[in-house]
């Protein structure tokens, strides 16, 4: 056979590529190197502007180690009363704020849906959503603490406010994606606006609304652990105190409780969402 001779002929055939290289991420070489240079320049400048007090960091290493080892011997008892109180506040705050937030979010969400609301209502509701979503919970908490004083009520107001923006935005998007045929069918029976929303819109968005509410319950619990830092009650206040006093074993206990509750609630909400859909 002429096998070897043919292969040799192929290998030397003019213009036939013998190696393959994958195409680069950016086709133009100039732009590619410009991007690399920009990234490198940023890293040099950015890292250069980070001032680190290395002696302080060095001193911190044993403390960091103490914190890590505290996770293997968490202390649930010596601050047990505070932890229990903080947990109570966090859980009650989470539940009431989620419910109140959703009740307020439903009208706002309906108003923020382009296919349901007239233009002025739409603009107003979108403004509410944007306002509520653009600030971190902790910033809102600072303002509410200044208004109603320290304690879980400020936390409740904060979480409700944040819930309104979150749920209303996603609900509005869901309403805008409705199946038009069902909406039209109900419309064709001569239904009023209220009947229309109740029989055509509500059944379609309900599964997603329940899913979102559970998701938000989850988020609100996590946030309730944070806003305590600025005095809005909850387990965050307990955690803040423990860390300020360098009581890492109590802090580890609080963190483990938070992780456990988040894991359980994530699992439960996942199961419920699967059941609803």
């Amino acid at each position, binding site marked *: 056979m002429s096998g070897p001779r043919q292969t040799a002929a192929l290998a030397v055939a003019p213009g036939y590529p013998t190696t393959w290289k994958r195409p680069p991420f950016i086709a133009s070489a100039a732009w590619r190197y410009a991007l690399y240079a920009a990234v490198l320049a940023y890293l040099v400048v950015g890292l250069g502007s980070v001032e*680190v007090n290395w002696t302080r960091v060095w001193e911190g290493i044993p403390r960091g180690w103490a914190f890590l080892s505290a996770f293997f011997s968490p202390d649930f008892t010596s601050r047990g009363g505070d932890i229990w109180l903080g947990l109570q506040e966090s859980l009650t705050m989470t539940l009431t704020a989620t419910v109140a937030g959703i009740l307020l979010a439903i009208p706002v969400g309906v108003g923020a849906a382009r296919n349901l609301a007239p233009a002025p209502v739409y603009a107003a509701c979108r403004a509410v959503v944007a306002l509520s979503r653009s*600030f*971190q919970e902790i910033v809102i908490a600072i*303002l509410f603490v200044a208004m109603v004083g320290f304690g879980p*009520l400020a936390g409740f107001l904060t979480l409700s406010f944040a819930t309104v923006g979150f749920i209303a935005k996603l609900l509005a998007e869901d309403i805008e994606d409705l199946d038009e045929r069902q909406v039209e069918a109900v419309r064709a029976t001569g239904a009023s606006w209220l009947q229309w929303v109740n029989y055509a819109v509500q059944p379609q968005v309900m599964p997603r609304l329940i899913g979102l509410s559970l998701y938000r319950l989850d988020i609100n619990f996590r946030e309730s652990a944070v806003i305590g*830092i600025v005095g809005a009650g909850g387990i965050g206040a307990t955690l803040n105190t423990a860390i300020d006093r360098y009581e890492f074993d109590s802090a580890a206990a609080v963190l483990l409780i*938070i992780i456990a509750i988040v894991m359980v609630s994530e699992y439960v909400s996942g199961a419920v969402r699967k059941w609803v859909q």
Partner: protein
Amino acid sequence: MPVLQSATGRSWQHRSGRQRLIAWFGWLALVALVVFAWQVMTRDTIWAFVADAPRQAADIGERMFPPRWGYMERLWQPLWDTLNIATLGTLLALFVAVPVAFLAARNTTPSVRFVRPAALLLIVASRSINSLIWALLLVSILGPGLLAGILAIALRSIGFIGKLLYEAIEEIDASQVEAVAATGASGAQVLDYAIAPQIMPAFAGITVFRWDINIRESTVLGLVGAGGIGLELSHSLNTLAWPQVTLIFIVILGTVVLSEWVSARVRHAII
């Protein structure tokens, strides 16, 4: 769907009587629970303060305007620090999150029984704790400053990026992996030529998305001493300098809107 027969004729109803009863008791239980939770929560509330809230709000609102524009020149440096915390924190997180994601994905993990649960636990632990709490801890361990902020952002981002990335890895097209493996490629080559190109768009999207969130979060890390514009916010709040607070709010808002725009543009370009 049950149809009821009554004196006036047949009428259609959404649910049967039994279902309605169950739903009614479910709602009743929820309302009772909420009322109970409300009472537990407001046990120690001082209502005189709450009644005073509208006046307080009006008072603060009055003091907040007009914003003190001259303060802006002292905000550029903290703003740059905030940007660095978010960006460097995201980059640092990538170095840890990418290997963790490969260890956590069912189709790339070396051991489903031992390595995967450990990687998943790492992801869950990182995700459950807010970056502010990480910052609180790190400030107490390492001292206040940018480093604590960068590490806090990185620690929180590992879980987020790791989770979304391992889900993306699990959804890749297995036939491409098989095709590359069939050419005799080594494990690393399969990773490089079959898996990486498939997850690249998801990876870039997730990273930019997280960077956007990190900008948002790094604006407040300073409240616990981890540097950035939050530090100025904290100073201004402590000295009750409300016009400065207003300006900082405006700057934060502007930064957040800008970063959201950038991230939306980049994600749009990738996908």
